[in-house]
């Protein structure tokens, strides 16, 4: 068990190191000098040189890399080339927003997927199962941004039940926070829920065929109780895997959904930074997203061992 955790942690650290080099390398290799880009092409050589020194771009790449990684580790990724604002606080603010969105979407996805997937498995081959399967197929096919636009058109523009976008921090106005969170979280969560439903369904179907379930029923449990007490926990192993993998797609989906709903999260920060050619900010945002995905995968790995005792000695 401990060995497994250590190995996984080692893999995590190695992946982090490699991805930091890749992210830094990519942006360093981009054509164009950030100082010149910030000042304009006809800026004097003098002012470009001054700005390069200010940004620390005149130092060797290796020094820049080490400083950048050091900065990221100590929570000080530096100042934006364009806005001159500290990047650290911006990342913290925006990450909070995106985490709320991703968390709410995940809750919605799970709330949809567990009952729907289990029902589909139990009704496997029957008409009601087919209808559910059709619905989930439809959900899988709809991209989150389209779901967002449809939700806005229906609930905000037509029915006027909920605002079409925006963001209010929960401490400022919890009611407004929930009202504004609902539609973007639904847009993300519905699609993810549809994907997840299909995994829950096949996992439960697999479990239903297992010998231990037949044994449980032979001992006198009703099919429902047998599934509840012995089946679902085993079915959760592949589901948690997918949920973990989906967190990565959720983060990416958030980039799009934040744009549609005007939510100032990581996705919007990234798009704005790209539009403004704010390379240091792009670098920081991408790295934070990479870290988030890797850490989630690491945690999912550990969760297996909790959920499936067989893996503890693996």
């Amino acid at each position, binding site marked *: 068990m401990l060995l497994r955790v250590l190995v996984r942690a080692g893999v995590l650290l190695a992946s982090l190191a490699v991805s930091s080099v890749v992210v830094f390398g990519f942006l360093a290799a981009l054509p164009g000098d950030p100082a010149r880009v910030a000042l304009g092409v006809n800026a004097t050589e003098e002012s470009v040189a001054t700005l390069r020194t200010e940004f620390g771009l005149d130092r060797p790449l290796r020094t820049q890399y080490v400083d950048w990684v050091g900065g990221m580790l100590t929570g000080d990724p530096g100042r934006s080339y364009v806005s001159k604002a500290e990047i650290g606080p*911006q990342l913290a603010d925006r990450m909070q927003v995106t985490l709320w969105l991703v968390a709410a979407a995940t809750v919605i996805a799970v709330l949809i997927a567990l009952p729907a997937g289990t029902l589909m498995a139990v009704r496997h081959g029957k008409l009601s199962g087919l209808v559910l399967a059709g619905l989930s197929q439809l959900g899988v096919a709809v991209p989150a941004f389209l779901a967002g636009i449809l939700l806005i058109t229906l609930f905000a523009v037509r029915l006027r039940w909920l605002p079409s976008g925006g963001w209010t921090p929960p401490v400022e106005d919890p009611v407004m926070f929930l009202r504004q969170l609902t539609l973007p979280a639904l847009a993300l969560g519905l699609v993810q829920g549809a994907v997840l439903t299909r995994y829950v369904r096949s996992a439960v179907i697999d479990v239903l065929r297992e010998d231990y379930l037949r044994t449980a029923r032979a001992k006198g449990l009703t099919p429902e109780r047998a599934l509840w007490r012995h089946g679902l926990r085993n079915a959760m192993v592949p589901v948690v895997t997918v949920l973990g993998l989906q967190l990565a797609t959720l983060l990416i989906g958030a980039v799009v959904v934040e744009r549609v709903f005007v939510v100032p999260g990581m996705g919007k920060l990234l798009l704005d930074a790209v539009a403004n050619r704010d390379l240091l900010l792009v670098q920081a945002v991408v790295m934070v997203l990479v870290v988030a995905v890797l850490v989630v995968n690491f945690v999912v790995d550990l969760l297996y061992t909790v959920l499936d005792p067989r893996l503890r000695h693996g």
Partner: protein
Amino acid sequence: MESGLIGSTRAAAGALVAASLLGLAACSAGSSTAPPDGTPPPSGEGSEESLVLGLVAEPATLDFTQDGGAAIPQALLVNVYEGLVKLDQDGEIVPALATWQVSDDGLTYTFDLVADAVFTSGEPFTADDAVFSIERVQNDWTVALKSAMDVVASAEAASPTQLVVTLTNPSNNWLYNMTTRVGAMFSQSGVDDLATAPIGTGPYALSEWNRGDSIVLTRNADYWGEAPYFNEVTLRYFDDPTALNSALLTGTIDVITTVQAPEGLAQFEGNDDLQIIEGSTNGEVLLSFNHRSAPFQDLQVRQAVRQAIDHQALVDTCWAGRGELIGSHVPPTDPWYEDLTDVAPYDPDEATRLLEAAGQTDLTLRLRLPSLPYATSCGQVVASQLEDVGITVEVDTLEFPAQWLAQVFQPPNDYDMSIVAHVEPRDIPPLFGDPTYYLGYDNAEVVQMLADADAGTAEEQVTIMQEVARTISEDSAGDWLFLLPNLVVADADITGLPENAIGEALDLTLLARS
């Protein structure tokens, strides 16, 4: 940083990119202020009401002395920062923080400052601040627009309320430029944190900047002039046109300052709760000819391309029929505007004849478009119309701004034709009076006329500029596809929305709710 990328030595370059980057954003910058003799401002006292405006492209910084983005003066000029002079809705230069007199030789401007203007930091506005602001443009600004102040030989405070500026040569353009961000007045003690904490004398002060979301301006209680109607104005920024439209339909915002895609207007039409305002901007959508490329050195080829294009059909197809036809590089809001659409009328037979006369019956031209909505959609129409007269057009799209700037705008200027909206006001001189510009248009006669217009009296300026506009059109220096429209949609009870976008600022001071 939009235009920071580009920075030409000429003012126009910055704005070109800035506005083009957004497609249209800058066009929403309505201008002007209370006309000296026209309608009275809505309220002397102001109300406790607030207003939310929807805009596109949030500024990355609030410091327009270091960053050329058009979104910064759009939000801050006239509202937070004031100049000595400003533009009214008719495009006339009128007093703001000062009245002025010009010496007979046109070299000395004497400004008498208003006595009771105060910066939001509490410091009074004096002639020393004005001198400081002008000299700061020359010494500390890094954006290309600073060249507008090159003509100033000296600025001196004759008294705390009198400023004397001496020019190296008479220049009508200088006083005009003083109405733009270049003429903004800063406090000597208030320039430490321009990127986040602007300090001006204007009717509004920045109270909040929620990055990625909105800028909130609150009425300046100590403002020296007439108090604006709204106590609080929120500028909310949207990346996505659908989100912007939905926000108005759901009441999240009160005004869309510029509709991003004109075909989107349909959803607002027939809605009695909303008003649609359609006016003009300074954004000439130019089909640019590269005068360095061989075929375009022949006037007959340039004329043929112009006469092959059915401009009304083009604007109907690619911009939903919204946008005025202009025929030269002057919007109708400029004093020297003339309708020049008849200089090169649509005539495909004549175009074919001109091509034959030029010996260019097998002509291939490269149309390299920036990745902007109006350019890509109108580029397709241009290509198909040119192919109708036998010109082969190779179209490609370059990512804007970086790729387009590097390949088309900067040397080696590797293109034959491109399409971009030039949104800087009064931008003939940098475009057609500078052979080093990306157009490569080299006409000594035009250069001389531009110099004469700048140095002449106001009447001479108008006459000569009319001649310039006609000359570049007759010489087919480019083809003006149409003028970008100013499309505003707002709640029906909002008044004071400017019809035409004339200057750089989105003037909030005239807005009110009826």
